[in-house]
């Protein structure tokens, strides 16, 4: 291609890039290195060099969609067995808004979790028996039991967590990072999304395009979905009948034709397009190489579990996440559906845990072994927690409603404090009694790890400098190493 992209073209392009929003996955890095481009001028103050020394270079966000119960997993409440079946006191509920699904309930009976808890590691973190693998890496984790959100329904809650606003219209977290950091990878997107379906329920809440959308940011920052199957990126595969060699020859011809057109029209955007075709061609090789797990040794599957051999499973996606960050993807987001346990929680939550436990612990371990954990931030959690009271009347196979006042998350690597236990909830696991961390605070802290001052990573739209953290958010030093 160098013969085609001659010096003249490159000069043209460079000049053009200074002035125009010509984003692309690989060019975004170039754009960000150039203070005077239109995109970069909006983000001038957001240059990684202009803020802080980044501790994390990339993020893996293991999102547990539906709202996993903190009470069955990580927030051990020893008094609950003795409170089982008693009415939730008004002093605890404090007139708290509950969803329309339980607001008609006359009684709010406390449901004690039916699973055993034990302490683990140096930190003494409590984990239920449902997460034996995750419990084993507890000293790597920064565990937060005092997350809270105002939202109590899925759509606003998940939108809040991913975009910093309960209502549609804002860019997603990954889009912000793609915009701020660009891509490290030559031939892979900066922001990748993978979806898996839980065994615990039939995914009874939706996911939404906006969760990985670019909002008002240029659309090249939207998340690229990777799916199981051969067309792991949409339209990746050549049509049947077109082999690689033929495609190469056609693209060579196309590049020459486009180059002639550039000489004719003088528009540097054409040179950029020639590059995009080259990158698409490279992606057609790099993506299958990335998604092909056949060259992983058996020890990998011993670590992640045999489920990791099933394409599209959470375990396989965890392994894919490691392979992606190795190759320079900035933000890998997994969505695991099925945590919305309104009923039959004791039956279903163990299945959800079996989906995720071994593989997510393996991912952290694997990243550490490969020296990637230091600058890769792993994030685990859902959009809210679940209520201590039973949804409907209290049964053996009880259910729990949504609960925003407290929920648990964990982080690992990327500048977070290993072995930290942050925040405490009351005896009911209902209210936070110490160290509350709001979603905005989580976002501010996450950006801090990535080298951004959350107040300065901004994009001007309709006259306003928007931020992921809106007008809120505090960096939480207790989360940091």
């Amino acid at each position, binding site marked *: 291609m160098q013969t085609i992209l001659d010096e003249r073209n490159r000069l043209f392009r460079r*000049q053009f890039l200074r*002035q*125009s*929003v*010509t*984003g*692309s*996955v690989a060019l975004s890095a170039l754009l960000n290195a150039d203070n005077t481009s239109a995109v970069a001028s909006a983000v001038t*103050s957001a240059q990684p060099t202009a803020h802080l020394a980044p501790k994390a270079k990339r993020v893996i966000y293991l999102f547990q969609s539906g709202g996993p119960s903190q009470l069955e997993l990580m927030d051990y409440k020893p008094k609950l067995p003795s409170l089982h079946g008693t009415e939730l006191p008004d002093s605890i509920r404090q007139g708290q808004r509950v969803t*329309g*699904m339980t*607001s008609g309930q006359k009684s709010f009976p406390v449901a004690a979790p039916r699973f055993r808890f034990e302490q683990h590691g140096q930190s003494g973190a409590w984990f239920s028996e449902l997460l034996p693998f995750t419990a084993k890496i507890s000293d790597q984790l920064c565990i937060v039991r005092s997350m809270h959100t105002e939202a109590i*329904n899925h*759509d606003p809650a998940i939108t809040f967590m991913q975009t910093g606003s309960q209502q*549609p*219209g804002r860019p997603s977290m990954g889009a912000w990072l793609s915009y701020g950091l660009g891509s490290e990878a030559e031939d892979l997107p900066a922001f990748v999304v993978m*979806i898996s379906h839980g065994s615990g329920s*039939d995914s009874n*809440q*939706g*996911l939404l395009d*906006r969760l990985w*959308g670019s909002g008002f*940011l240029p*659309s090249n920052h939207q998340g690229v*979905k990777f*799916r199981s199957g051969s067309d792991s*990126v*949409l*339209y990746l595969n*050549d*049509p*049947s*009948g077109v082999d690689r060699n033929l*495609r190469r*020859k*056609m693209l060579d*011809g196309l590049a020459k*034709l*486009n180059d*002639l*057109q550039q000489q*004719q*029209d*003088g*528009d*540097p*955007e054409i040179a950029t397009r*020639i590059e995009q075709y080259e990158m*698409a061609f490279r*992606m057609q090789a790099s993506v299958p190489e990335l998604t092909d797990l056949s060259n992983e040794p058996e020890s990998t599957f011993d670590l992640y579990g045999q489920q990791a051999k099933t394409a599209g499973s959470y375990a396989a996606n965890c392994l894919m996440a490691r392979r992606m960050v190795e190759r320079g993807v900035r933000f890998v987001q997994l969505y695991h559906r099925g945590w919305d346990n309104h009923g039959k929680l004791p039956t279903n939550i163990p299945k959800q845990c079996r989906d995720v436990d071994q593989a997510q612990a393996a991912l952290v371990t694997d990243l550490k072994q490969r020296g990637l954990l230091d600058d890769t931030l792993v994030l685990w959690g859902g959009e809210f927690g679940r209520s201590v009271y039973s949804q409907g009347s209290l049964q053996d196979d009880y259910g729990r409603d*949504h609960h925003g006042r407290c929920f648990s998350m964990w982080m690992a690597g990327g500048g977070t404090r290993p072995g930290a236990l942050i925040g405490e909830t009351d005896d009911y696991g209902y209210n936070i009694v110490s160290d509350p961390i709001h979603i905005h605070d989580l976002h501010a802290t996450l950006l801090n790890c990535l080298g951004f*001052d959350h*107040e*300065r990573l901004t994009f*001007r739209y*309709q*006259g*306003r*400098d928007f931020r992921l953290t809106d007008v809120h958010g505090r960096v939480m030093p207790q989360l940091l190493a």
Partner: protein
Amino acid sequence: MNLFHAMKSLFMCWSMSLFHAFALTTNLATAQSPDRQIDFARDIQPILAIHCWSCHGPDETSRQAELRLDVRDQAIAKSAIVPGDDSTSELIHRIDSTDTDSKMPPDTSKKPLNEKQKELLRKWIQQGATYAKHWAFEAPGRTAPSSQSSSDRSLGPIDQFVNDRFKQMQIDFSPRADRETLLRRVTLDLTGLPPTLEDLNQFLSDPSEAAYERVVDRLLASERYAERMAMAWLDLARYADTNGYNNDEERTMWPWRDWVINAFHRNMPYDQFIVEQLAGDLLPNPSRDQLIATAFLRNQGHNTEGGIIPEEYRVEYVADRVHTTATVFLGLSMQCARCHDHKFDPITQTEYYQFFAFFNNLDEKQASYSKFVAAEPFIRVPSAEQESQLKNLESEMDGLPEKEASKKKEREAMELLLPAVMILRELATPRETFVLKRGQYDQPSMRVSASVPSILSQLPLNNSTAGNSPTGEPVGRLELAMWLVDSRNPLTARVAVNRWWQSFFGTGLVKTVEDFGTTGESPSHPELLDYLATKLIDSHWNVKELQKLIVTSATYMQSSRLTPELLERDPENRMLARGPRYRLEAETVRDNALAIAGLLQHRMGGPSVKPYQPAGLWEDVTVERKGKYKEDTGEGLYRRSMYTFWKRTCPPPSMMSFDAPNREVCLARRARTNTPLQSLVLLNDPTYVEAARLLASLMIRDGGSETKDRINLGYRRCVSRNARPDEQKIIRLILEQAQERFLSNAKQATDLNSTGATPVDGAIDSVELASWTIVASTLLNLDETISKR
């Protein structure tokens, strides 16, 4: 009526003199001398708005030290500004200070000033620190361009305004684009489709000066034009075929989309277009069409998630209407004032809720998830066919009781199949509107009544400034709509013509088409913008006439060739010294390919369709993984992309790759990116593979036996010109390489030919067809094919 006209002409005289003063300063200011005259609107206001007004601006609650820098007298009274003397102005002391306690803006604001900005502030104070009312809040002036002609071409009014700027810049128009290019450009712009070969031949065979104008008239009259114009309206109206949000049920708002198409087809005056969409229900004896029009304000999402608080979402929907109305018609970002007074624009929180009150009186009901049809209020809208069926049923009811009962049942069953269109209907007893603290639905404070922001209230709302009309009736949406289309409204016409300008040139005269407020960009050609705005008003809001004026201008007809000099001096083409050149929009990329291949099915309107889409995308995200995407067969695969079913939580992926929004919120300007995912769509999406095969068939069948002629036919279909010799050579090589491949492996040829639902032309040899399909695919992937130039 007489009084109205008298007032109108008085108003015009006043604004004209003001305008001349403004034009003069602009001209002086743009001369790039070291001691140039500072222009408040262009040079100072953006600095103050962004760096100072958050604490020293219109928002009373966050104001510090009781200092306002947005009001000149108050800034002077506090000695922040001493006109003519920067050395004693406190503002200058503060911005130059290195002491963290006195430095402004303070470090905590994280909005430091750079040296250039400081210098501008100094100069501005030295020159007297004049303020000007923000240009966009003054009615557009009527003015004539100063230049009459340039070199050898006759210039129309648009061109003369453009030429005025050229003189300051010492640049000139580019040559006129060649005729093929021009025909393709204007056809794509006005119809979103390429010219047909007949169009091309006809135009090239008619060398008369009037030929181009005849083309424009033909295009403006076509149904394809109406579709193209409606397509642009769908982003603004956040039109979609589902509710969005968690459950994302299907809705049937497409009769509204068809109403928009018809409105453009009939060239409905733009003022009527606005009034019917905002308040069609409040017109006397509204027709069904006028009720359908009001679906514009019901196009927002609707959340049916179990457990939401209906009032919370009702308030969100009203806020969405405020945002949409303000953005689409006024180019203002009012939502900033929802939680507190606006930091930059003089819109208070109280004024926000006064505007909110216009939309707060709807008889809007929360719908439930199970068996969602539509959220009340809605009407059932039969198609012409359904209507006649219903009539037949009616006439068959002949009095026999048994038969009647079954017919009635039949009729009821049929009515349930009719599309339900959500419309506007006012509550009988008005709902009170309150200022909501921090924008929260459950935090009402002061009660307010409907009104427009005071910054715009020199234009009275139904001859009354607020609350009630002179007759004592409360003012409502109809009065608001009438106010928007009043010829003296400073924003409505400007915002409209600016958006059309954007659709033809790629960038608005005001680049921030969604923001005409103080932080929006100043117009590149303020006089031209005002000329077009007043032209629109004076023509009784004649949309086609105004668009014709633009596309017949010499400015529009220039070659888009970019010289190194132009690239250096004006990379974004803001000075308009060349024609537009940029990638087509998402829908047009696909429609263009379908038209080139002869696949496009022309049918105006109707239910949305489901063309090719990779399997499983919907199930990945839908509730309980229900709701499968069921691809259409036949016609539905080849309709224009504006008819593609738009699921908000999972929009058509190939559209998203080309910068389409997900249609959850109003959008006035799409990004224009250039990514490898776009290349993958054009190379591998079955839509384009099939189009390539069909184009190949056409090249073989209609192109004659000579390779050269076939290639030329392909070029003419794709880019309205023949291939140049060097292009012929490259294409021949691609063809030969493909032939070689397919000859050695015939199965590959039949595999490639099997993509797409259209039957393979059996008369063509399989290897030949596949080889030409590779050529055709190359042509469909040319930058030139997917660009307007």
